[in-house]
Every structure is written in structure tokens, then in C-alpha cells.
């Protein structure tokens, strides 16, 4: 009930103004309301409702005119104004606009996402904090030597200047000396330098050094700009741009060349060579062969487009210009003309050999022959006169060359075909000059000038076999008369090989045609001239029994060579990996006595091993090198690559240089064996702290800035000089 009263009390306070304004209505309404309220409370509403102001009442003016206060009067002018200007509405408008602007508050992030964000932030922060240490860690890892504790309070030795400045002359003698020194301006106290020395010190001062460094920096910066520019330009994809660039460059080069030709002919020659080289390179490329996409399209376009036609013509001209053969001398031209006059009966090759090119150059000759192949082969007139004795000991190349020359002159005609049938071509070509006897001249069949076909004269293996023997062959050719003729030797060697193994024997025979043991042993020994001769020899000389020596030499155990060859062959056979025979007689066949597994089966169950690596003495006929491995030494060898190394070469290189004091000077020895970490006894080794790191950075900055006087720098750097980084430099001296 008390609440009801209160509500009733409140009510008049609220409704006061209305009451006064429109009394009659008001009172009625009020009464009505009260009635409603009391009724409602009676009906069961526990709590009186707070008084509301209902907007929708008809007493409220639409234009908010009368709302201001009780006694306010509405002015007409206000009513006539537009709404916007009325100041009373301002606050409401503001509110409205605010309401419009503020959007709904977003939902808070989910827990996981929230955590993730926090985590990421934490990570970046921490990594940034730790990244500060990176250079220090790197530096310490790479440091040649680390001395712990890292930060040491450096013992400051009082500079001698200070010590001296406290000193004063006392005795008369000292005073006198002091005076003398003063007179000659000798340094007595601080800074211990004569004026001259001071001047000299100033001559190369810090500023100068700075200037120099700045210059260097500038130069470096310029260089980097230039590089960047070049890179940028290179990246430009526009073809037109590059074309223009190229053209500009070439024209520039031409201009320069003109200039050079006038003033410096030598340099111009060099330039010319360069240009020639460029031409050759362009010639080598297939740019102007009209095979590119552009060329093909332009060919099609050329029918309709004048410009394209011109471009095509240009291109053709360029191609022609490039592919034009360089004419070495005017003589050759004449020759060429003569040849043409001859009616092309004789191929160019015949005369071209000596023209312009080095006749000794086998490449040039080969080229000539290749060219001549395209032309119709003209049969030679077979003269077939007396054959020339070909030296059997001539080396292959020489023989070939000479052979070629002879044929060119049309003097000789060798019948090779019959011989070539027996051996395959390559072998024939190889063995022909030194093995086979010169064939009798055959008058009948005419032979083409070139019997070479598109076949390799020498395979790679042959070249390999030949290489080390070149010396031998040279020797051989030098002393052709001294050595025994080769044929019997080879016959002997071939006869020694078993007749059954045909292929193998052929192979060995082939190799031995390249490598001849006797040729190795037979040699030109220069006989020494000596003023004193042993008595025995003197006697011999006096008795002129020269034949005795000859006989002795002849009978100097000749089987020595054969024995050695046999031994070597045996060593080779032993060294070869053995085939595994898995043949089971009777497997898959009928059994019985006298069982012979079929060859097919035998072949199938014979496991042939891969051929081992080539023998070390492959090319040394007079040497047998054992292939056995030194196992006892291998026990001491490193057989696993130690950790940081990536290849055995690296490791081997790293242990190649000796470290011991026996092979090094004392200083080098100490540096090579310096321990990586030194701990000073009696010191606590703290973990590295930020101050240490900062210290390093600071000193670095100071070094970079170069602001402080040099003396300070030294005293500072002394502290962390332990980190031997600077020592390295001083050591390099």
C-alpha cells in the first residue's frame, strides 16, 4: 500500500505542467489515469509501473515547437524557418547521425583464433629479439679462436707519457740534460714525439683515411648503381629496344674504329680482329640461315608486303656476306679460275692442299677431302709406275698424309679393296701403313681418288691406346734402321697367341700392333765419350774384336722379352674377373652317360662378370703393375667421410697440408695448432649477455664512424681483440 501512495504522489509531480497548460482536459485525463492505475493495482498488479511518457499522445507537437518549456511561446518566425536551421534539433540530429554510423559490434574471435594471433605476435616478437644475436652467433661460430670469459676487464697499463710527466729532474746533471733536450726540442713529456714526427703523423691522419674510405664507398656505390641499371636493362623484354641498343652499339663501335684507324693503327688492327671474331661467331650461329620463325613468316609476307620483302633481302644479303668464304690470297683465286677453265675435270682438292692453308694441318686436309666428296669422283689416269718403297715404321698419321699427297700427284695406285675385305675398315686403316707390305701395283682396276668412307679412322679406344705410345712411335720412326723390322715381331707375337681364340687373339694382336715391346726396348742409346776407358775395353779396342761385342749383344738372352710378354699376359688373365658357371648337367634334359649340356644352356647359365677397370699398365708394354690392394695400409686409412665434409676431395685437401712443427715455421705451427677455445683459469664463464653483444656492436659502429681518436679505439678493441678476428689481419703480413 505504501508503494501505491508513493506512486500517487509521484504522479502529480510529473503531470504538473500539463495540468497548468490545459487545465480542464488535463484534470480529466489525470483522473482517468489515476483511476486506471488504481484499478490495475486492484486487479492484481503488484508493482506500480514507472510513469511513462507516451510519445503517441496527441499533446505532443509534431514540430517540436512547444516542447521547450512551460512558459515558452512559439514564435511565428521559428515556424517559418526551415528545420535544418533550428538549433534545438541539432543535438537530435547529431544523435541520429551517430546512430546511423555506428555499426553493430563484431563478434569476439574464437578461442583458437585468438590464441593463434597471440602466438604469432609472440613469435615475431621473440624472433626479432633473438635475431639481434644472429651476427654474434655467426661470428663466434666462425671465429678462429674464442677466449672465455668473453668479456674481460682489460688491464690498463699506464701509458708511458703519464709516467714520464710525473718525473722531474732533480740532480744538476739531470737538469742540465733536461735543458739540453729542451733546446733541441726533443720530446721530454707527453706525447713523446718530436715536432717532425708529429707532422709526419698528421700527414696521414684519420681524416685522410676517412676521405679515402669515403671515396671508396662512393666508387662502390656507383658501381652498384651501374650494375643495377645494367640488370634492369637486361631484363627489358622489348625486342625493339634491344635491337635499337644493338644497332647503336655497333654503329658506335664502327665510329670508334674509324677514329682508331686514323690515330692508332695497331689498336685498330686489334679492333678489327675482334670484329672479325664477332663476325665468325655470328656466322657460327644459325641466325641468318632463314630458318627461324621470323624468316619463314617474312618469306610468306614478302609476296604482298614491300617492307617484308626488303627485310628479307637484307637478311639474305647478310647471310651471303657472312657465309662468304674468306679468300686468303689472290693466287688462289687465279688457281680457282684455272680450275674452272679446266672444266672441272680435276677436283679442287688436288690443288687446294697448298693454297692458303697449312699443308701440315690435318684438319684442313680433312676438310678438303670432305668437300671433295660432294663433287663427282673423277677416276685417275692409272699410270701405275714403279711403286715407292713405303717405310714400314712410319707413324700412322704421317703415312696417311703422305699417302694422300701421293695420290694427289697421281703417281700411285694402291689396291686396297682386296686387303680391306679381310679386316674391317678401321683396322685396315690403322694397320695398313706399318703392318701390311706395300701391295704390288695393279694396272687393271681404276681407283677413285679417295677411298675414305664415312667411317671413323680411329675410334676413341684407339686414340686412347695411341696416346701414351706417341713417344715410343716417335722413337721408332727416328731410328728406323736400327730397330728390327716389325713384321717378324708381330708374327711372333701372333703366333704366340693361341690359335683357338680368334677374336681375342685378334684383339691382342691389334693392341700389340700399337704397342711393341721390342720397340720399347730397342733404343738410341747415346754412347758416352769418356777420356778414361777401362782396361778391358782398351784391350778390346786394340785387338779390334768388335765382332765379339756384336755377338754378345745378339745373344743377350733374347727370350727375355718373350718371357716377359708371357708373364704379362698371365697377369692380365689373372686379374680379369672370372665368369661364374652355373651349368647343371642334365638339368632339363635327359640324363645318362656322356652327357653334354647344350651350348644354349651353357651360355644361359654362364654368368659373365662386368669387365673390371682398365689395368694401370695398359699402355706400358714393358711394365706389369700389381693390382693387388695394400690391405694393411687400408686399415690405417679413413674409410668414412667425417661429418661436415661433403666430398672426399674436400677432406683430402683439408688434411693435405702438414701441421707439425717439422714442416712449418714456428709461427705457422702455432697458428695451425691454435686451440679453438681457450678458457682462462680462475674465471667464471658467464653465458653471453646482451652487454657483450652490445659491446661488439658499439665498437663496430665506432669503427665505422671513425669519430673517436685512434688511441681510444685501440684501448677499446684491445678488450675484444681476444676474439682473434683482428689478429688474422695482422698475421697476414
Amino acid at each position, binding site marked *: 500500500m505504501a508503494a501505491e501512495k508513493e506512486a500517487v504522489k509521484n504522479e502529480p509531480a510529473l503531470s504538473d505542467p500539463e495540468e497548468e497548460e490545459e487545465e480542464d482536459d488535463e484534470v480529466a485525463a489525470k483522473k482517468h489515469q489515476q483511476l486506471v492505475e488504481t484499478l490495475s493495482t486492484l486487479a492484481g498488479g503488484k508493482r506500480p509501473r514507472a510513469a511513462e511518457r507516451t510519445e503517441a499522445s496527441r499533446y505532443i507537437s509534431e514540430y517540436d515547437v512547444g516542447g521547450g518549456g512551460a512558459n515558452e511561446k512559439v514564435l511565428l518566425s521559428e515556424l517559418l524557418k526551415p528545420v535544418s536551421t533550428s538549433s534545438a534539433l541539432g543535438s537530435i540530429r547529431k544523435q541520429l547521425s551517430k546512430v546511423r554510423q555506428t555499426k553493430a559490434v563484431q563478434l569476439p574471435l574464437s578461442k583458437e583464433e585468438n590464441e593463434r594471433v597471440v602466438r604469432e605476435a609472440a613469435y615475431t616478437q621473440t624472433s626479432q629479439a633473438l635475431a639481434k644475436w644472429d651476427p654474434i652467433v655467426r661470428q663466434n661460430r*666462425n671465429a678462429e679462436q674464442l677466449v672465455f670469459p668473453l668479456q674481460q676487464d682489460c688491464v690498463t697499463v699506464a701509458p708511458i707519457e703519464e709516467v714520464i710527466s710525473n718525473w722531474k729532474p732533480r740532480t744538476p746533471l739531470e737538469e742540465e740534460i733536461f735543458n739540453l733536450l729542451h733546446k733541441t726540442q726533443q720530446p721530454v713529456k707527453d706525447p713523446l714525439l*718530436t715536432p717532425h*714526427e708529429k707532422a*709526419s703523423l698528421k700527414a696521414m691522419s684519420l681524416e685522410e683515411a676517412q676521405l679515402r674510405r669515403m671515396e671508396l664507398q662512393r666508387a662502390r656505390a656507383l658501381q652498384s648503381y651501374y650494375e643495377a641499371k645494367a640488370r634492369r636493362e637486361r631484363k627489358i623484354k622489348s625486342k625493339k629496344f634491344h635491337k635499337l641498343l644493338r644497332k647503336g652499339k655497333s654503329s658506335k663501335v664502327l665510329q670508334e674504329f674509324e677514329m682508331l684507324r686514323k690515330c692508332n693503327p695497331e689498336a685498330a688492327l686489334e679492333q678489327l680482329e675482334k670484329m672479325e671474331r664477332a663476325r665468325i661467331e655470328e656466322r657460327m650461329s644459325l641466325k641468318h640461315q632463314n630458318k627461324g620463325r621470323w624468316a619463314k613468316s617474312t618469306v610468306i609476307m614478302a609476296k604482298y608486303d614491300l617492307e617484308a620483302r626488303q627485310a628479307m633481302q637484307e637478311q639474305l644479303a647478310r647471310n651471303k656476306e657472312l657465309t662468304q668464304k674468306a679468300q686468303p690470297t689472290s693466287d688462289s683465286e687465279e688457281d680457282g679460275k684455272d680450275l674452272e677453265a679446266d672444266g672441272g675435270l680435276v677436283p679442287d682438292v688436288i690443288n687446294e692442299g697448298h693454297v692458303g692453308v697449312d699443308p701440315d694441318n690435318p684438319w684442313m686436309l680433312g676438310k678438303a677431302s670432305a668437300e671433295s666428296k660432294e663433287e663427282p669422283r673423277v677416276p685417275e689416269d692409272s699410270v701405275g709406275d714403279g711403286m715407292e718403297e713405303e717405310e714400314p715404321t712410319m707413324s700412322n698419321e704421317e703415312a696417311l698424309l703422305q699417302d694422300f699427297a701421293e695420290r694427289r700427284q697421281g703417281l700411285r695406285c694402291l689396291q686396297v679393296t682386296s686387303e680391306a675385305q679381310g679386316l674391317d675398315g678401321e683396322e685396315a686403316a690403322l694397320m695398313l701403313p706399318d703392318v701390311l707390305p706395300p701391295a704390288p701395283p695393279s694396272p687393271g682396276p681404276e681407283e677413285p681418288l679417295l677411298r675414305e668412307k664415312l667411317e671413323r679412322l680411329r675410334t676413341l679406344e684407339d686414340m686412347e691406346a695411341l696416346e*701414351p705410345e706417341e*713417344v715410343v712411335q716417335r722413337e721408332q720412326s727416328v731410328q728406323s734402321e736400327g730397330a728390327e723390322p716389325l713384321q717378324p715381331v708381330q708374327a711372333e707375337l701372333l703366333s704366340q697367341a693361341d690359335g683357338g681364340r680368334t677374336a681375342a687373339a685378334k684383339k691382342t694382336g691389334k693392341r700389340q700392333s700399337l704397342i711393341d715391346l721390342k720397340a720399347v726396348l730397342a733404343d738410341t742409346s*747415346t*754412347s*758416352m*765419350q*769418356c*777420356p*778414361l776407358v*777401362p782396361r778391358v*775395353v782398351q784391350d778390346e779396342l786394340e785387338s779390334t774384336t768388335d765382332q765379339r761385342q756384336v755377338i754378345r749383344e745378339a745373344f*743377350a*738372352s733374347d727370350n*727375355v*722379352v718373350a718371357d*716377359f710378354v708371357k708373364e704379362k699376359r698371365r697377369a692380365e688373365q689373372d686379374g680379369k674377373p672370372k665368369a661364374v658357371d652355373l651349368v647343371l648337367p642334365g638339368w632339363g634334359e635327359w640324363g645318362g652317360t656322356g652327357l653334354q649340356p647344350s651350348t644354349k644352356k651353357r651360355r644361359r647359365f654362364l654368368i659373365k662378370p662386368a669387365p673390371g677397370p682398365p689395368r694401370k699398365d695398359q699402355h706400358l708394354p*714393358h*711394365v*706389369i*703393375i*700389381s693390382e*693387388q*690392394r*695394400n*690391405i694393411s*695400409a*687400408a686399415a*690405417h*686409412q*679413413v*674409410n668414412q*667421410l667425417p661429418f*661436415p665434409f*661433403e666430398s*672426399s676431395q*674436400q*677432406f683430402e*685437401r*683439408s688434411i693435405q*697440408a*702438414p701441421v707439425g*712443427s*717439422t*714442416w712449418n*715455421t*714456428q*709461427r*705457422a705451427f*702455432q*697458428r*695451425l695448432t691454435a686451440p679453438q677455445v681457450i678458457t682462462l683459469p680462475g674465471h667464471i664463464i658467464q653465458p653471453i649477455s646482451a652487454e657483450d653483444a652490445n659491446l661488439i656492436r658499439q665498437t663496430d659502429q665506432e669503427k665505422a664512424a671513425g669519430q673517436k681518436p685512434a*688511441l681510444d679505439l*685501440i684501448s677499446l678493441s684491445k678488450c675484444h681483440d681476444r676474439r682473434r678476428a683482428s*689478429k688474422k689481419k*695482422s698475421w*697476414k703480413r
Partner: protein
Amino acid sequence: MVGGLGEKKKRPQRYWEGEEVRKPEPEQVGPPDSKKPYQDGGHLGKKLEPGRRDQISGKKRPQQYWEGEEVSKPEHKQVDLLDSKKPCQPGVHVGKKSKPGGRDQISGKVDPFPGPAVISDEWVQKFRRGTKPKEKGKVSNKQLRHKLALQEEKAEAAAKQAARMDLLLLEEPGFLEGDEGEDTCTITQADIADAVDLAAGAKRFELRLAQFGPYRLSYTRNGRHLLLGGRRGHVAALDWHTKALLCEINVMETVTDLAWLHTETMFAVAQRKWLYVYDNQGVELSCLKRFHGVQRMEFLPYHFLLATASETGFLQYLDVSVGKEVATICTKGGRLGVMTQNPSNAIVHLGHSNGTVTLWSPNVKEPLVRMLCHRGAVRALAVDGSGSYMATSGLDRKLHIYDLRTYQRLHSLLLPIGAGHLDFSQRGLLGAACQEVVQVYKDISVCPSKKPYLCHALPRAAQGLRFCPFEDVLGVGHEEGFESLLVPGAGEPNFDALESNPFRSRKQRQEWEVKALLEKIPSELISLDPGQLGTVDTISLEQQRQERVARLGYDPEAKGKFSPRRRMKGRDSAGSRLKRKQKVAAEEQRAAIRKSLAEKGQVQEPESPPEAFPASRRSALDRFRK
């Protein structure tokens, strides 16, 4: 007459006051080649720097800024380049011109030779090991790259330092030079002895020992002591500089060969039946009955091995430090009367009657190398100090020079009556004894001249021939005694006092002995390539890999099986994945086939474009063919 002799003024010093002068200073500078030849190519003696003591303690005096840096690097390099063009004999040069921006000294004077002395690159090359690898960017690990670079830099600096220290080698070698039109081989020993100073002249002497004839001889490694052994049992050991006799005994048996062991306190004598070891008093220390019928002996100083060759064809190795027989090898080469050692790798060379020379190590039971050198029997062998040249002489009166690196013959000489004994001196002179004529050849491995460098006739045929180390002396034993000949330029002029000191005292010798024993190289390490120890054993590496594969059942280093990458939606159907897989598989198969074909040598050349069909068989579609 004798031009080159003027240069040889070192001997008197060493002889008279050697002990007093040389002994106190511990840092003797050694010859580059006399040191530990088994370890590596070039060698360098012990070298200390005279100044720079402060640096050795490891603590540096902080450099004052006014002291001036001694070198600024680029300048240094420039001078280097300039210098390398000149032929530089002594190796060390002093930069002549002062650098333009050179700093003044405190005293105001300008240093005329700023910076350290310039060393030519060729000279440094002598002290470098191996060749620098060319491709640098191959190391992917940054830290390793840095480490390797640092190592390279250190090694280079060490080589430079070593080259710089060559300045301290005081003596220079010289050779005999004849006047114009005069051959050096016509100069007699008497002339040489007259021309040289008194002390050097005293080294030419003769011992007439007609009674116990033909003599063999052996010098100690420092060249101070001489051991003589007559065939008929006479054994004498003496300090040949002072001619003080250590001992003289008669073993009352045939003496076939004899050799000093590691010091002058012990020597081995091969007698009629067995091998005996005596001390320098002539007291028999031991009799090795397992070594019988020994014909020739060689002592391998760094392994403490005594290699003996017997008449029954056995090559035996005795470790003299422990008295154990290390290896016994039956050479199957008949009587072994010719033997020498390769001082660079301790390989023993044997000459045989069938004209072959065999190379042996105690670890392998077969010859490492067998070379056919002569048509007739091999009479003498010698290997030079660097181990790269071998001289052989045979019954065919020829003298061959072989290059042991390639086993090719370099030169061949025909001597009047083949050489029976050969020996290389430290500086590469070759001594050859042809019966009673002793000839010495110069530059024989490079370009032999027509005439010998020196020639000398003995009273009777020579039986032993040895150059004395560190002396220009050639000792020859013959049937009527011993003769010591002067051969200018034979010995290495500078010796390494820590290695082999001719003037060492007893104490020093003892100390050296202990050190040498500590540094003894085990006999297992004797192989043709002395650098074998420094290489990774790739064969066992491979073997280990295979074993690991067998153990694990798979190859952990093998390339993984191909699994196709996941593609974007729509292209990752099972079918397309299979297709991709098959493509790769086919590619692998193709590669394998190609490889096998290539092995068989049946690689077919690319087919020529198909020719146009003959007109008669043209099909309808051929009209589209161009």
C-alpha cells in the same frame, strides 16, 4: 781453371769450428729435401724465425697506430706480380722501390724497403701441397665453406712463411765449371784437391788395404761415419772427417755387404752364412740366423727396417727397433745381387738376371711393379733422392734412366763397359763405376750430355760406390782399398740439424734417437704412393655402403620411388595419375635399355627420314605428303 770451386767455402767453417758454432743454436735450418721424405712431396726443415719472439708467446703487443702497418695487402700483391716475372734464383727478394704512399718512420727516415720481403710465387710453390681445387662454389654448407677457406688461407700463409725462411739457408751449391773448350771430365782429382781449401782438400784421401780386398762401404745418414768391409773379413768403422777409428775387426768370414743402422753405434754385416750386428766397438750384438746368405742390404731409416736380399731369392725385412722379422718374401727371382731403396717411399728395388727390375713393399707378397729394363741381366740400380728417377745398368752395357712416376724410359746411354755400381747423390749427380773407371754424370735425368761431369781411374776394379751425404765426396771401395773422391756439387750444402746433424754430440744423438723412435713409421704404411694415408679409402667406403644396404634391407641413400605430385582438382583422377606414373617408369626403362644397348655397342644411328614411296604404291593419303 776451376771456376765453380770458388763458391764452395763452407767446409773449413764446419770442420774446424763446427761443433762450437753450430751446437748452441737449436734452430738449424735444414735442407728442404733431407726431411722425412715419406710424408709428402716437398719438405722443409725445422725453421724458427730469429726475431718475433714476442709473437710466439701468443700474446700480441697492441700495435700502435704510429708504427705503421707493415703491409697493405694490395700493394704487396702488386710487387709479387712484378717480381714473379723475373727469374729469381734465391727465391726471396727485397722490394726495391718504396711505395708511393709509404709511411715515414718515427725517426723521419723513409724506409727504402717497405713491407716484408717479397717472395716469388714459384718459390712458394715449392712448399705448397697438392693443387687447389678449382670449383669453389660446390660447397653448399656455409660454415664448411668458411672453414675450408680458412684452412686454405692458413696453409697458404704457412707455405709463404716457409718460403720466406729459405733466406736462412746460408750455403749455396756450386758445380765445377771448366774454362772455355775444356771438359770438366778431364780435370783430375789432384787438380781439384789443389784448388780447394785445405780442409776440403783433406777430404780427398786414399786407404790402401790390399790384403783383404775388394771393399764395400756405407756412410751414416749424416755423412760423418764410414763403414768399410773387405771381402775377406776385414770390417772397419771410422769417423772419416777426423780419421778416428771406431773399431777394426776381422770377422774371419766372407763379408758380402754391410750397412749402418739408424745411428753410428750399430752396424749390420752380412757374412758368409748369417747376418750379424755389431756395435761401434766391434762387439757382436746379435747373430740373425734367419737371415742367411744375404747378398745386399738396405736400411730404411724412417721405418727402422733392414731389408736384406739373399742368394736364395728371399727378401726379408728386419725391424731393428724391436728385433722382429717383419716380412719374408720369396721373390722367385733367383740370386738377388742388385738392390736399392727408393728414399722417398721406402720401396725396395731389386734387379734380376732376366733384365727385370721389381719393386717391393713388405706388405705385398708379389712385386708391386715389374719392369723389363734390359735385354740382359741388371747389374746395378740407383734411385734418386726425390724418388722420381731410377738409373739401371745392365749386361748390355747400357745405362737407362727411368721416370718412376710414369715408368717410361727417359734416356739411354751406352757406356764403354756397362756400369757395375750406381749411386745418386743428394743433389742428383749420378756416380757410375765401370770396372776401374768411376764416372759422375750431371743433370742426367734432364738432359744427359755426351761426356761425364767427372771421371777418375782407380787402381783396380770398384766394388762399392757411395756418395757421402752433406759432403761433396764420393767414396769408392775397390780391390785394393778405399778412395774418397771430391765431386763438387754432390752433397746438399745445408743440413737440418734436427734431422741429420753431422756435428751432433752424443747427447744430441741420444735425443734424436728417442725422437726418431717415437716417430717411427709402421711398416704397413709402405706403399708406392706415400700419400695414400691421406686419402679416403673409397673401396671400403663402397663396401660399407653395400653392407649397410644388406643389413637394413634397403638402400637409405637410394632415390625414392616416384609418386606423382598431387594436382589441382580435376586433373588428379586416378587415370591421369597412373598415366604420369607410367610415363616416368617408361622413361627409366628406356634409359636402362639405352644404356645396355650402348654397352653392347649396338646403338643405332637415328633413322634417316623415310623416303618417298615409289609412285606405283602411292596411297590416297600420300597426296598430303610434302
